[in-house]
């Protein structure tokens, strides 16, 4: 996993955001990259299994609700847009706007959780679980791992919203807001790959 020493370093980053030296990169990127590599391995595992059971994977993929997948993509990219607005407001020291956009990011993001629950419960109602076949094993593993990252992101957003009410958003807190936003974008970009992988590859 990520180098743990990279995380506490955030608090000591320079806070003068009017100067943006090229070298200033949040340590959270190391953690994000490590996570993305793990997901890349899962994607590869999926493709290897798929190669051996093409018909089964395509038939199973066709049972997924593409519209829920699209809705989830739209929710995450919109939530991602709002967190860009939050970082932008924080950089300018606008506390109210920062908290407002963080809240908007959280509320729109919560829609992803709702849609995912609707999707999971519909599948389980039809008796489809991890043990149904290898496609669904990957379906639950990939979307489940992604969902845990989503929950982590939501928790981070809530904590940042809370902290932004008590500290200057363009002070030491800015580094944390930026890191939280970067993490949230990772949740977004992983879904951008998971969606076509699980929902669209079966198309002919």
């Amino acid at each position, binding site marked *: 996993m990520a180098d743990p020493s990279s995380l506490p370093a955030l608090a000591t980053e320079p806070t003068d955001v009017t100067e*943006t030296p*090229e*070298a200033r*990169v949040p340590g959270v*990127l190391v953690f994000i*990259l490590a996570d*993305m*590599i793990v997901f*890349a391995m899962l*994607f*590869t595992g999926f*493709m*290897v299994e*798929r*190669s051996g059971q*093409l018909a089964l994977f395509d038939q199973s993929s066709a049972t997924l609700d*593409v519209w829920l*997948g*699209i809705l989830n*993509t*739209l929710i995450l*990219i*919109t939530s*991602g*847009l709002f*967190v*860009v*607005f939050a970082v*932008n407001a924080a*950089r300018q020291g606008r506390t109210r706007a920062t908290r407002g956009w963080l809240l908007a990011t959280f509320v729109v993001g919560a829609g992803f959780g709702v849609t995912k629950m609707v999707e999971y419960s519909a599948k389980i109602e039809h008796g489809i679980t991890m043990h149904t076949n290898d496609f669904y094993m990957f379906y639950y593993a990939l979307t489940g791992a992604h969902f845990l990252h989503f929950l982590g992101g939501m928790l981070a957003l809530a904590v940042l919203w809370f902290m932004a009410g008590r500290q200057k958003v363009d002070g030491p807190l800015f580094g944390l807001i930026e890191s939280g936003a*970067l993490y949230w*974008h990772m949740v*977004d*970009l992983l879904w*951008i*790959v998971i*969606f*076509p*992988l699980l*929902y*669209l*590859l079966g*198309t*002919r």
Partner: protein
Amino acid sequence: MNHTTPAQALCVWFLLVVATLGGTWLAEHHGLAGRWTVAVILLLAAFKVRLVMIHFMELGKAPWRWRATFQTWIVVVCSLIGGMYFVALSGQG
């Protein structure tokens, strides 16, 4: 000043929405591009991931090593998925 402005972010969001709807439309209509539908869908996904990295994550202004590393991830992931998709397809005949 090279941070993503709200107006730029809005443009990126619009492109992301169009690419999402376009890609899915293509998949659902069994593709105007025939068997290359999946290739187009993967290219659109790569394009979307890159938009998020460069503009939303502001890697466009990060040191080039970071930018290159993240973009390599896109190339590797999409090539692996696309490559294995077409190998499986050709194996099927």
